[in-house]
């Protein structure tokens, strides 16, 4: 495995499958009474979060702790970042504490890549702006594999704000590596420029895609969160407004691209529904869809811990890290 995990596109098919297979074993451990395992004993992992997060941060924290690493959380609020320290100084200060790995989230795309160039320890991208979120793609792939088996030639539909979604970008890369077929669906204003070069089918018509008429039978659907913080709404005009720059109103978005009960019926009974969370119920996903037996939302959370345990194990437990004190043969 390469030194850092910055992009889902860095993973070869063999590497990705090895992580997912390891995660499967880790997943079995989660149901045990005693979940603590020793391979990262004496290792220190710092969660360096410059952007709010509950599930990703706590998921990495639990994953590290179950493998016996010491995990420290540093968030932008209440740290020296709020006192005006530069990103580089903050990162170098944290790294100088003697950490073995940095798990970084930042609201600027590319920030994690920059950070990886400044420090000597492995860096894991836990989401950078609208760019990538590789462990989310891994946990989505894990959840899909649990339900569908091998993902070769499976058809996954990703719906929502593709432009601002790091989840969509990482999933497109990883699903392509694993041999799946991806269709992206969203309003034209939320389709990124150059999406034609991503190697996916694209559509503006959710009903046609879900019913299989537009791009073939659907094996799974992934609803993206409407990220108010990236659409510029919610400030002056109130929380129910999406800013009007990309989408006129929430209501119009829900009508065009929400997973309503009627759309749920268009899907095959076997197709799992994924959502990276947190969900906006009634906006991109109806409560009936979110709470249906096909909803994988909580499975995804559980898979997240297993996948992050697998990533930490494979990046930190091995010999690639310098071993100073070799035991006698």
């Amino acid at each position: 495995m390469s030194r850092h995990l910055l992009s889902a596109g860095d993973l070869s098919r063999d590497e990705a499958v090895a992580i997912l297979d390891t995660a499967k074993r880790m997943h079995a451990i989660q149901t045990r009474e005693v979940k603590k395992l020793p391979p990262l004993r004496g290792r220190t992992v710092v969660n360096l979060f410059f952007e709010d997060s509950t599930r990703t941060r706590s998921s990495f924290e639990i994953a590290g702790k179950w493998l016996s690493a010491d995990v420290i959380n540093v968030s932008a609020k209440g740290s020296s970042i709020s006192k005006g320290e530069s990103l580089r100084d903050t990162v170098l200060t944290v790294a100088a504490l003697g950490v073995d790995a940095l798990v970084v989230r930042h609201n600027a795309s590319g920030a994690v890549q920059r950070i990886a160039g400044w420090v000597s320890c492995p860096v894991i991208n836990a989401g950078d702006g609208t760019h990538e979120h590789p462990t989310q793609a891994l946990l989505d792939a894990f959840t899909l594999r649990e339900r569908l088996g091998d993902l070769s030639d499976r058809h996954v539909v990703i719906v929502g704000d593709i432009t601002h979604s790091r989840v969509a970008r990482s999933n497109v890369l990883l699903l392509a590596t694993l041999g799946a077929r991806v269709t992206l669906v969203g309003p034209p204003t939320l389709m990124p420029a150059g999406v034609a070069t991503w190697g996916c089918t694209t559509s503006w018509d959710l009903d046609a895609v879900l019913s299989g008429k537009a791009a073939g039978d659907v094996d799974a659907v992934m609803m993206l969160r409407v990220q108010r913080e990236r659409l510029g709404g919610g400030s002056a005009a109130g929380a129910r407004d999406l800013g009007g720059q990309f989408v006129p109103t929430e209501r119009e978005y829900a009508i065009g691209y929400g997973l309503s009960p009627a759309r749920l019926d268009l899907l095959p009974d076997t197709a799992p529904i994924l959502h990276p969370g947190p969900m906006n119920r009634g906006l991109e996903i109806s409560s009936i869809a979110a709470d249906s037996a096909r909803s994988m939302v909580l499975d995804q959370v559980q898979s997240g811990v297993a996948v992050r345990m697998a990533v930490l194990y494979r990046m930190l437990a091995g010999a690639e890290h310098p071993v100073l004190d070799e035991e006698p043969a």
Partner: protein
Amino acid sequence: MNGRARTPVEASTLGAPDVARIVDRMAHQIIENIAKIDFDAVLLGIPTRGVPLAHRLAERIRVFADVAVPVGSVDVTLHRDDLRLRGVRPLGETVEPEGGITGKTVILVDDVLFSGRTIRAGLDALADLGRPRAVQLAVLVDRGHRELPIRADYVGKNLPTSPRERVRVSLAETDGADAVSVVEEADA
């Protein structure tokens, strides 16, 4: 039986009929031992080749004594002490036997006993699954060169080797055919 070759041999030291007889004898020895505790025992194979061995022992015990001893597996990879030295490896499967291991006599099963480090890791891994009444060890081959104070309760074949050699166990389930051979390691 051929004596132990001092020079590395490519020919199999043990063939399929030898392995079958050895497994039968080990099954009888285990029966003799666990009959005293009313067969309240479980067989736990250590992946990869300890698992099919554990299933074979259970099958022979069922044939000879007409008792079903639960079988499971315990992966020791995450408890190994050489991960940093030799790097990470894929994880094997841990399957808790029916009824768990707490209060039972656990018989760990592996193909080759060498340094004892795998078994040391196995003992740690067991502690995560429960608290056995007692732990015993069954190995198909004991090749010596222990680095830890560990010994086997049931030994299929004592095979004295030099540290430069490698003992290769093949089983029908994992390798297509049963055989045990001693080969010289490429660079040791």
